[in-house]
């Protein structure tokens, strides 16, 4: 899975939690949770979906590195690379 696939999968996950989001409008370099109204429950559900669908373990300690979509994609790619 290259980073293009990972990004589209993550956007699809966010959309399943926040259906009103149009993928095009999302800025990959800005804070995700400010652009999309995700409270702590929504955010946990996003990480849960990433864990289920992309089989990536995300400990709470890493939350800080996952502010933007780019950071999230890079983090997942790194983890997937490590597992492959």
């Amino acid at each position: 899975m290259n980073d293009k696939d990972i990004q589209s999968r993550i956007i699809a996950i966010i959309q399943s939690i926040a259906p009103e989001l149009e993928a095009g409008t999302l800025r990959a370099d800005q804070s995700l949770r400010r652009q999309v109204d995700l409270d702590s429950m929504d955010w946990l559900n996003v990480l849960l979906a990433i864990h289920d669908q992309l089989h990536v373990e995300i400990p709470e300690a890493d939350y800080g590195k996952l502010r933007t979509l780019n950071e999230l994609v890079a983090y997942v790619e790194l983890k997937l690379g490590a597992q492959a």
Partner: protein
Amino acid sequence: MLEFKLPSLGADMDEGKLLEWRVKPGEAVKRGQVVAVVDTSKAAVDVEIWQEGTIFEQLVAIGATVPVGTVLATLLEPGEDAETAARHAATPKPTPESPVQAVAVSAPPAPSPPPPGQRKAVSPAARARARELDIDVDAIDGTGPHGAITLDDVVRTSAQRVAAAVPADRATEMRKAIGAAMSRSKREIPHYYLAETIPMARAAAWLASANEQRPITARLLMGVLQLKAVAQALAQVPELNGFWRDNAFQAAEGVHIGVAIAMRRGGLIAPALHDVATKSLDQLMRELTDLVTRARAGSLRSSEMSDPTITVTNLGEQGTESVFGVIYPPQVALVGFGRMDTRPWIENGLPCAVPLVTASLAADHRASDGHSGARFLIELRERLQHPEEL
């Protein structure tokens, strides 16, 4: 040049151990002659040779275990001498084409699609969830076998529908309802407000270590700890937990906390989380997750809407430092939690950076007064210093 290979001597023989040679290089052999003894799983067996010629080279040592088909020795064909043999050695032998063909596994007959005009194929699980979310299955196009409708199809449809529906009619309805309740509350209830800043270092540390031992699917949120602390604190100050009816306060037996949940595109619902005081954090987390999901999918049960004994609103990390809410009649109190973040704090005389949260109380002065409100907030603060007891 001929090759004498270890023959397969039985249906269940894969390898053999060479025990003994019965012939030496240079010795002539006839068809059917026993040339070696090989040990197998059952016992030692005489091995015959089916080619005529003279033994040239013995390639496997006594005592070696080799798989069936291994070349044990080479032979000179009658009339062949050593050096002509060397030239032939290089020609590769065609290996027998394997007899095993892919066996076509006959798939069991797939459930055939319902004849046209017949009602839709819907899985029992999907049908049950559709009934729960009162969704008309015929309006869904299925992704299951032959277009059958699966559970996922129903859940996805309901999520989209709720998201789409809110802006149209549901939101305005909801707005009206909230408006009516809030204005009645302001009209009738003499609110008083109190606030207290609560250090959260212990709670945060306890939560971090608790979550390390839990899989992601069971991870706890700080909000659950706050809800449980509220429930425990109310045990000391019961006059905040109940209803104002017929000009008198009625205390509630259990603590059913109305959790204020913001809808995705505006609107607010505060369904009840029942018996918060008596449930474990893990159970509360599960119930809270389910409550939020169903609230946002628009599938709350009526019982959950009608009977919270107090309400808690929590603006979370995106919220402000503090929030002072409006009580939901006929309740007599509302607790608010602001944004938790690290701020300066003095601990045993020394300044330090500590995660803090501002908890507020809006209460009905007819049912209680500032003194008991303050006792509640101090008790709430104390409870949050002992997260392991929550």
